[in-house]
C-alpha cells in the first residue's frame, strides 16, 4: 500500500471515529502532505507509510499544540519535537494530534478543555489518561500506533483500560525535546501499539541520544527482538504489594491466567517484595505537582497562547490569565505543588518525598540484583471506570495510578499488555525491567502476547 492510500484510509477512519472525541487537530490536506513526503522518500524507512497519532503535548509545526488547555488555544510551535522528526525520518505519517487530560494531568481524559474522550468499547466509561485520545484511537483500529507521554503511568494505564499495548521506556532512552514539560524528572515520551511488535518498532525509531535533551543517554540502538519460543531461563518476580486482597476479581483472574501461561512457557515465577511500593502514589503526588508548579509558571499570558486583559499591573494580568486559562485539575496541581514547596513545608513534603523516591528505586534495584529478570503485576487495580465516577474526589482518581507510577519514580522501563477481559472490558498486565532492558522485556511480552487470547473473558 502506498503512503497516499494509507493516508486516505486513515482519514476515513478518523472521520468514522469522531464520536470518541479523541482527536484535536487533523485534516485530509495535512495527511495528503504527509503521504506525499513519505512517497517521495528515496529509501523506505522502517515505519514506511505507518500512520501514527501524536498526543497534543508533543509539539509540531503543522498543527496547533494545545495540551488540552484553553491556555494554549491556537498555539503553533515554531519547532518540531525530536520524536516527531524521528517518526518522519522513519517514514511514518503523522496522522493527527490527540486529546488528553490538560497538560497531561489526569487519569481519565475527562480533564481536557476540549471535552472528554470516550472509551471505544463503552461510551459511558473513560479510556484512562492522560494519553486517552492516543489509546482510544489505537484501540478503535484507527491507527496501529500512537505516541503518548508518561509522567506517572499516563500511557500504560490507558493502554490497560483500552486493551492495547503501552510501553514506557527507561528515563533517558527517548528525547523529551518538544514534549511540553510537566514533571521534568519523570516525563517520558511513550508508545501505544495494537501489538507489542508495532510498539517496539515505533519505540526503536524514536529512541536514542539527542543533543537537545541532556537527559538522553548514549546507548546502543534499541533492538527489536522477536518473542522467543519459550521463557525458559527467565525469572519473573511477582511483587506481593501489587496483588492486594481487594484487587478487582477480573484483574486478578487476568493476571493469574498470564502467570500460569508464563509458567507453562518455562519461566521461573518467584514472589518478591517492594516494601516502599505503598508510598509510591503519595510520593508521586508531591514531586509531580512540585515540578508542575515550576514548569507551568511559563504560561502567564505574556509568552505563550492567550491573555486575559484586566485593570491593574502585570501580576494582575498573570493571575487573571492563569486563573481563567487553567482547568480545575491543573489548578489543584499547581496549588498542591506550590504548597509543598512553600516555606515551612518544603522539608516535610518535598525533601521527604525525594528521600522516599530513592528508597522506591532502591527496592527495585535490590530485586533485580537478586536474579529477577522482570517483574509482572496488574497495570491497574480495576478495569475502566465510569465517566464522572472519580471526578469529585481527586485522591480516588490518583489511586488509579497505584501500580504504574513506581516505574516513573524509579526511571524504569515498563510495558502494559492486554491479558483478558472482565465483563467485556480489557484487563492489562504489566512487566517492569531494569534500566535499558527494554529489548528483553518486550521480547518476553511478545511471547506472552502470542500465547494469550486477550479477548477471552477471564472474570468469574
Amino acid at each position, binding site marked *: 500500500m502506498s503512503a497516499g492510500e494509507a493516508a486516505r484510509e486513515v482519514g476515513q477512519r478518523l472521520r468514522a471515529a469522531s464520536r470518541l472525541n479523541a482527536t484535536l487537530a487533523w485534516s485530509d490536506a495535512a495527511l495528503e502532505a504527509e503521504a506525499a513526503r513519505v512517497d517521495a522518500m528515496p529509501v523506505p524507512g522502517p515505519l514506511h507509510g505507518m500512520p501514527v497519532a501524536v498526543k497534543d503535548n508533543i509539539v509540531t*509545526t503543522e498543527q496547533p499544540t494545545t495540551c488540552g488547555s*484553553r*491556555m*494554549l*488555544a*491556537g498555539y503553533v*510551535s*515554531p*519547532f518540531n519535537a525530536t520524536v516527531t522528526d524521528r517518526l518522519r525520518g522513519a517514514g511514518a505519517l503523522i496522522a493527527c494530534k490527540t486529546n488528553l487530560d490538560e497538560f497531561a494531568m489526569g487519569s481519565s481524559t475527562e480533564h481536557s478543555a476540549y471535552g472528554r474522550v470516550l472509551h471505544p468499547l463503552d461510551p459511558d466509561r473513560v479510556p484512562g489518561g492522560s494519553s486517552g485520545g492516543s489509546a482510544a484511537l489505537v484501540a478503535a483500529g484507527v491507527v496501529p500506533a500512537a505516541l503518548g507521554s508518561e509522567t506517572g503511568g499516563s500511557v500504560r494505564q490507558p493502554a490497560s483500560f483500552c486493551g492495547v499495548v503501552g510501553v514506557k521506556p527507561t*528515563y*533517558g532512552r527517548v528525547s523529551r525535546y518538544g514534549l511540553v514539560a510537566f514533571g521534568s*524528572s519523570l516525563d517520558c515520551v511513550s508508545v501505544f501499539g495494537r501489538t507489542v511488535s508495532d510498539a517496539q518498532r515505533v519505540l526503536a525509531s524514536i529512541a536514542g541520544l539527542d*543533543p*537537545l535533551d*541532556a*537527559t538522553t*543517554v548514549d546507548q546502543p540502538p534499541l533492538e527489536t527482538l522477536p518473542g522467543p519460543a519459550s521463557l525458559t531461563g527467565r525469572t519473573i518476580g511477582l511483587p506481593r504489594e501489587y496483588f492486594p486482597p481487594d484487587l478487582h476479581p477480573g484483574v486478578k483472574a487476568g493476571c493469574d491466567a498470564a502467570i500460569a501461561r508464563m509458567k507453562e512457557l518455562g519461566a521461573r515465577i518467584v514472589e518478591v517484595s517492594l516494601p516502599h511500593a505503598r*508510598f509510591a502514589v*503519595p*510520593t508521586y*503526588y*508531591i514531586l509531580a505537582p512540585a515540578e508542575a508548579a515550576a514548569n507551568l*509558571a511559563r504560561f*502567564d499570558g505574556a509568552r*505563550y*497562547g*492567550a491573555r*486575559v486583559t484586566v485593570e491593574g499591573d502585570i*501580576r494582575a494580568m498573570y493571575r*487573571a490569565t*492563569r*486563573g481563567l486559562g*487553567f482547568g480545575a485539575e491543573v*489548578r*489543584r496541581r499547581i*496549588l*498542591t*505543588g*506550590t*504548597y*509543598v514547596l*512553600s516555606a515551612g513545608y518544603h*522539608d*516535610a*513534603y518535598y525533601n*521527604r518525598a*525525594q*528521600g*522516599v*523516591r*530513592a*528508597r522506591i*528505586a532502591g527496592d527495585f534495584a535490590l530485586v533485580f540484583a537478586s536474579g529477577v529478570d522482570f517483574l509482572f503485576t496488574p497495570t491497574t487495580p480495576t478495569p475502566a471506570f465510569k465517566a464522572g465516577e472519580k471526578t469529585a*474526589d*481527586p*485522591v480516588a482518581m490518583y489511586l488509579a495510578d497505584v501500580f504504574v507510577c513506581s516505574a516513573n519514580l*524509579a*526511571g524504569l522501563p515498563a510495558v502494559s499488555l492486554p491479558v483478558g477481559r472482565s465483563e467485556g472490558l480489557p484487563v492489562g498486565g504489566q512487566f517492569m525491567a531494569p*534500566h*535499558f532492558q527494554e529489548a528483553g522485556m518486550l521480547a518476553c511480552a511478545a511471547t506472552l502476547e502470542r500465547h494469550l487470547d486477550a479477548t477471552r473473558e477471564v472474570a468469574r
Partner: protein
Amino acid sequence: MSVTPEDVRHVARLAELAVEEADLPALTAQLDRIVSFVAQLEGAGASGPDASVAAPNGTALRPDLVNPRPLARPPAAFAPEFIDGFFLVPKLGVMDES
C-alpha cells in the same frame, strides 16, 4: 494537617493564580484532602533528600555551547514590525472569557 482558606489564598498568590472567593471552600477541602493523603509519607522512614537520583545516568549536564537550531519560522515572522524600540508581535490567541 488541615489546610485553611488563608493557606489557599497564600499559595494562590505565590502561584500567580486567581481564585474566585466562591471557589475557595471547595478548593480548600480538596487541597486538604490531597495534603492529608500525601502526609502519610511521615511513616516512610526517610527524612530528607537522598543523593541518589532515579535517572539512570544521574544528573546529566550538557556542554555549555551556543548551538542555535533553525526555527521553522524565522524571527521576522514572529515580530514583523519594530517601532520606537519595541517589537510589535501578532496576537497569539484569544481566550474565551465567557
